[in-house]
């Protein structure tokens, strides 16, 4: 576990998420005989692939002290660009590249608005959420594109031969692995943590704060586009209202993974474990018989637990250490 996480109690929460994962699998397996089947697990992985990929980039952003609410609209915009260009006769592979480029440009726009014009990222990305969604309507109007090449659509829906892993697992594992490695081991990763803790001191230590943040917004745009490609293939269509509401699920997953909303704290596997356990919990409860409404309440409850539990454990820890003679490590809690 990287010695880099600043507050010790965050460390316990990563374990907390894994406990939930195990609990969910147990409940699912005993609650319904349909849970622990290969096809169900394959579906669960398929259903969380897009959110997990965007969550990797969102983890960087939130740790650096920023946020991006427009990721779902960027995902839809890249999907719409793929549909639009493919319909206009561009070969599908080129259309995918166009989609990725559009996502990158959208992320760059967010980055420029925040770093060059100094606008607050929460407010700006609410505006670009509307802007990018609007551009989807400009591209496709109300005519979704649905005649996509069957071999690509198969890629979006089938499993890797004789395994229960969908093809989307490959980009997911690759991106998650690289993001984990970069965040916790490389210079850039250190910079992201340090910028989140104190951007002024980072600037004085020669770290190109604006450049790093611009890059993170672009990376988030690109990852949203990658998710857009997978989304397009999975649903075999590009439509202007795709992926509505994804942004809050991504943010809920990142926070459930133990990342502090004020920045400076978080781990990549905490977030990945969180995305996986949310997917497994949803599937388990669904198969056990929960209605969609109950699922909504449970996911809200889990999000609350993800912030209440660390506070409770930290409170207990500080009580116990008060009793012991060991010096009182006053943990500064970011609001």
């Amino acid at each position, binding site marked *: 576990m990287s010695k880099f996480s600043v507050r010790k109690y965050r460390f316990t929460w990563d374990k907390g998420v894994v406990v939930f994962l195990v609990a969910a699998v147990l409940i699912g397996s005993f609650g319904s005989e349909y849970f622990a089947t290969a096809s169900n697990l394959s579906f669960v992985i398929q259903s969380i692939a897009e959110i997990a990929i965007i969550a990797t980039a969102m983890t960087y952003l939130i740790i650096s002290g920023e946020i991006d609410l427009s990721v779902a609209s960027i995902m839809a915009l890249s999907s719409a660009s793929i549909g639009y260009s493919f319909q206009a006769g561009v070969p599908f592979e080129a259309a995918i590249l166009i989609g990725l480029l559009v996502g990158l440009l959208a992320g760059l726009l967010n980055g420029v608005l925040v770093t060059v014009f100094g606008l607050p990222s929460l407010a700006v990305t609410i505006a670009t959420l509307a802007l990018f969604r609007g551009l989807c309507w400009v591209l496709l109007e109300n005519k979704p594109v649905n005649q996509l090449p069957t071999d690509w659509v198969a890629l979006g829906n089938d499993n890797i031969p004789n395994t229960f892993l969908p093809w989307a697992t490959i980009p997911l594992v690759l991106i998650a692995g690289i993001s984990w490695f970069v965040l916790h081991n490389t210079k850039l990763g250190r910079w992201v943590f*340090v910028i989140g803790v104190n951007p002024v*001191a980072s*600037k004085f230590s020669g770290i190109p704060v604006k450049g790093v943040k611009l890059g993170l917004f672009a990376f988030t745009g690109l990852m949203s586009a990658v998710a857009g490609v997978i989304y397009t293939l999975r649903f075999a269509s590009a439509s202007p209202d795709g992926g509505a509401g994804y942004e809050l699920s991504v943010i809920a997953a990142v926070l459930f993974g133990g990342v502090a909303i004020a920045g400076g704290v978080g781990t990549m596997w905490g977030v990945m474990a969180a995305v996986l356990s949310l997917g497994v919990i949803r599937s388990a409860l669904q198969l056990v018989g929960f209605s969609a409404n109950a699922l909504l309440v449970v996911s809200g409850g889990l999000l609350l637990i993800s912030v209440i539990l660390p506070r409770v454990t930290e409170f207990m820890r500080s009580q116990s250490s008060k009793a012991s003679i060991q010096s009182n490590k006053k943990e500064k809690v970011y609001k």
Partner: protein
Amino acid sequence: MAVTQEPVLEMRGAMKAFGGVQALNGADLKLFAGEIHALLGENGAGKSTLLKALAGVHKIDSGSIMLSGKPFLQGSTRAAQQQGVAVIYQEPSLFPDLTLAENVYVGRQLQKGKLVDWKQMQKEAAKLFAELGVDLDVDRIARGLSIADQQIVEIIKALSINARVIVMDEPTAALSSKEVNRLFSVARTLRDQNCAVVFVSHRLDEVFALCDKMTVMRDGTTVGSELISNISESEIIKMMVGREVSELFPKLPSTFGEVVLKVENLGSAGQFKDISFELRKGEILGFAGLVGSGRSEVVRAIFGVDTYDSGTVSVNGKLLPKGKASKAMSAGVALVPEDRRQEGLLMPNSIATNTSITVLKKLVKSLVVSKKGEDEVANKWAKILQLKYASLSDAVERLSGGNQQKIVLGKWLATDPQILIVDEPTRGIDVGTKSEVHRLLSQRAQEGLALIMVTSELPEVLGMADRILVMREGRQVAILSREEASSEKIITLATGSAELI
């Protein structure tokens, strides 16, 4: 000035411990109305803990505090204020978005019936400001006020609760001499209004100029209290340090090598203009001048934290691009910033992270930053700077001011710079660490490091610098050699008038 017999405030045998550390160890203090009382002592001597006890931030474990004969209600800032005890911290924390009138009456706004009476508040505040001879518009918001003006607002706040004991914690650290004079006259007005004023400072010249009485603290206890008139500066230092302070400013002679840094008529709109100088290897160039004369702005522009409009900066003949700190660093320039907490350090992070953040490039092996490398760098510099710490993973915010400054120095010396710029390197740290820092800097200079030292303390710049560049209101008024420089000359150049503090 009538010194009454009955002490307004008396603290006897105060004890206070945090975890294992005994911050207050039997401190006694007697304050009389109509008297300015200096509280002296090194960092870590327990001064701030004593202040916090008076301010009601926390209770003392044992011992007593009597306020004009009655026990002082402890443990709540509001109760302290209501009992007429007000503490003004070094960096006063006002409400940037609220008007000055509201800042004075925050939390206890004047009311007409149940409703806040804005007109009354503005009238009262304006009256208080006038009484202290300060003309500030009570309707403006506090954001952007200079530190000096912020202190005035805090004093007005104290007056508005007709405080009888006003404690000022190192108020002059960030003030220009004009502002220091204004503060002294305000302190004298308070004394004439029969308040007991406590003045905490490191600057003995100020203590002698202002205070009637003083008390010295060391290692959590009060070691002596005396009328200023019958004690000398060296005796005070001896009481503070408890051991013979070795030579305060050990300037080692050094031979000057070739020019490493060349600055030609550097200018930035509204901040500074036509700054030109050269810096040689092994040379210490002092930047003297009043607070607010633009010295920090110049060095920030050279290092590339801020950009500038005109002029050039070249290192070893090569031009440095504007506003690119990373480029300056790779050219061998380093800047120890003025604001330690906000600009110099990552307070919640560990000593290892703070020290190695500037040299991550060197610690990367096949993309991976080696944690062992980070610890080695931190260990090496902690030893060189004789840092007092428990473990490398301790959060920096738990260390004393002096140790924090050592980490900032270590962090920049680790980049093995050719040119080191230090901005107020020894502000707010104890006398002992100050001399260690000076010895280290002059050793480095002797080994060929080119050094720029921005400082507001005249003895420090006179003691350390080979040449002194004096600035006034953003202009470079003169470069004095070590021989021709003197306190009077610098002050006249810096203030543009012969007025002496």
